[in-house]
């Protein structure tokens, strides 16, 4: 019952947050220079055409009415039309998002499968030289812009060593992206590197916390081997908060994808967003912002729920 109440409140809270996000995005859409009419009709449009357009589109009605209309469109999955690509924003995102997900998920899998053992190893060898070295490295990596890392990788692996191409796969579909796995290496490695830094830190902290728990002492007193304790108990208990962290990490993942896609010319949502910023294609920009924001809200909602349901000791958590 307690959990059900929590879930209801938490989901209601998330919905309120999403509603506020739509208000912000709607506000930005209306703060645009020239308004949507200029954007769609172009610079040559006469004032009469603009008035007619505004009337047809309901843009001469009061703002609250327009906002409700905008919400209704959103609920129908209508995010407007791109100024420059002459295509529905929802369609553009539908084409590009899967490719971004491929990149992100691959980076996350590789990043986590390195970070988790690394973090555990650090925790076990706490305050030994190896721990210091890795902690320092992840401290530095935390302060490194993703694009700088990418630039250095491009410099070393495409120019000096010539192992990999500098351009990501250019396919239209996910299948075509996978058809060129060698070209996928550098973008995925760049994305994974920043994850290793962050998640080895979380894993180290979580493992250390669990190692000091009573159940570890009990298991030890009962004669369990260190290795067995580590892998049977501590690992499982430490993994939950770290996996939950992924939920909070959604905005960082999208930010990373934006940079990696721009750097390697990978045709995902990040590159779509970046080109839209270059050409002031507002419907695309704000459509992407909305999608990413909703993903962020859902990510942290799931993270909260995972932590709450898996670990009943986490109470409160609200706000």
């Amino acid at each position, binding site marked *: 019952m307690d959990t059900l109440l929590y879930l209801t409140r938490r989901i209601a809270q998330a919905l309120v947050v999403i509603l506020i*996000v739509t208000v912000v995005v709607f506000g*930005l859409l209306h703060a645009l220079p020239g308004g949507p009419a200029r954007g769609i009709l172009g610079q040559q449009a006469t004032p009469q055409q603009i008035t007619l357009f505004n009337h047809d589109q309901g843009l001469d009605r009061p703002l609250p009415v327009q906002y409700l209309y905008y919400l209704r469109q959103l609920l129908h999955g209508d995010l407007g039309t791109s100024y420059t690509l002459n295509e529905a924003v929802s369609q553009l995102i539908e084409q590009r998002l899967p490719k971004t997900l491929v990149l992100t998920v691959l980076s996350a899998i590789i990043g986590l499968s390195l970070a988790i053992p690394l973090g555990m190893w650090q925790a076990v060898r706490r305050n030994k030289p190896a721990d210091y070295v890795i902690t320092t490295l992840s*401290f530095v990596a935390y*302060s490194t812009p993703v694009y700088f890392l990418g630039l250095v990788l491009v410099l070393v692996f*495409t120019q000096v060593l010539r192992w990999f191409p500098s351009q990501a796969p250019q396919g239209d579909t996910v299948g075509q992206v996978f058809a060129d796995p060698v070209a996928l290496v550098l973008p995925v490695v760049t994305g994974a590197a920043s994850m290793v830094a962050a998640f080895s830190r979380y894993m180290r902290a979580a493992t250390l916390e669990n190692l000091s728990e009573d159940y570890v002492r009990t298991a030890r007193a009962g004669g369990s081997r260190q290795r067995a304790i580590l892998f049977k108990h501590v690992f499982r208990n430490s993994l939950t908060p770290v996996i939950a962290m992924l939920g909070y990490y959604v905005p960082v993942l999208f930010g990373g994808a934006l940079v990696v896609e721009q750097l390697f010319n990978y045709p995902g949502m990040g590159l779509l967003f970046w080109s839209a910023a270059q050409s002031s294609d507002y419907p695309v920009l*704000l459509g992407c912002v909305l999608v990413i924001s909703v993903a962020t809200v859902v990510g942290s909602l799931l993270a909260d729920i995972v932590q709450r349901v898996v670990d009943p000791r986490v109470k409160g958590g609200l706000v």
Partner: protein
Amino acid sequence: MSVQSARRWGLVAQFPAPLKARFARNKLAVAGLVVVALFFLFCFLGPVLYSTDQVHTDLTQVNLHPSGSHWLGTDAVGHDEVGRLMYGGKVSLLVGLAAGVLATVIGTLWGAVAGYAGGWIDAVMMRVVDAGIAIPALFILLVVSAITTPGVTGLIVILGLVSWLVPSRLVRAETLTLKSRDYVLTLRAIGGSHSRAITRHILPNSVSTIVVAATFQVADAILLVAYVSYLGLGVQPPSTDWGGMLSAGLTAAYSGRWWLIVPPGLAIILVVCAFNAVGDGLRDAFDVKGRG
């Protein structure tokens, strides 16, 4: 009995070492402070000692390798790279510092008012914070940059407006514990105003949290402005910052001009690391909770 032995035998109360001493014990934090100071000297005093033309292009001196006359070579329009680092660093440091402080001020006020007011005002104000956190700063910055081309002041304001959310949460949490302290209750009982309670009691007592948050905020702002400039939507030419210097980085990488990529990149990493180290040191010295 000397003070030393009295202390040893527990006859003198052991007060925690003063803040400065606790900070000084953290070698990494001290190193961070030194690095920050050196970079300020380099960027603001450096141009006096090592004068270069960073405004006019010199097409006879393009893309030179590092040499005796240009220690780090020149870029694609003939600017000396060492001078460029100083010139860009000024903007990076100033924008980062100002935006970090601005964000902390906004966040502090917002968090203190929300936490102090409580009830539905708090709930509404914190949902606004949640919504702000849900819209990733990098994306909203790029949208704003697409609408207007911000100058340095504009950039500071925009960065401040998108990154005050975390400090507001920290200060709110602090305010929640402070507002039920006796001295605040007493002040209210004798008729002191709400604004007096906030400005004279709650904020001064949260100062450690605020200072620590500000330090991390500056580190984040330097990084964020570097991202926006790298993507070509930050400070506009002929002005530049370290991120902007890397916006032509891909071309440089393809032609193997490492000296145009590595120095500004390392400068960003060093300064951001340094601010983070100082933040860690302050957090431990003040013994407050901040970023883990």
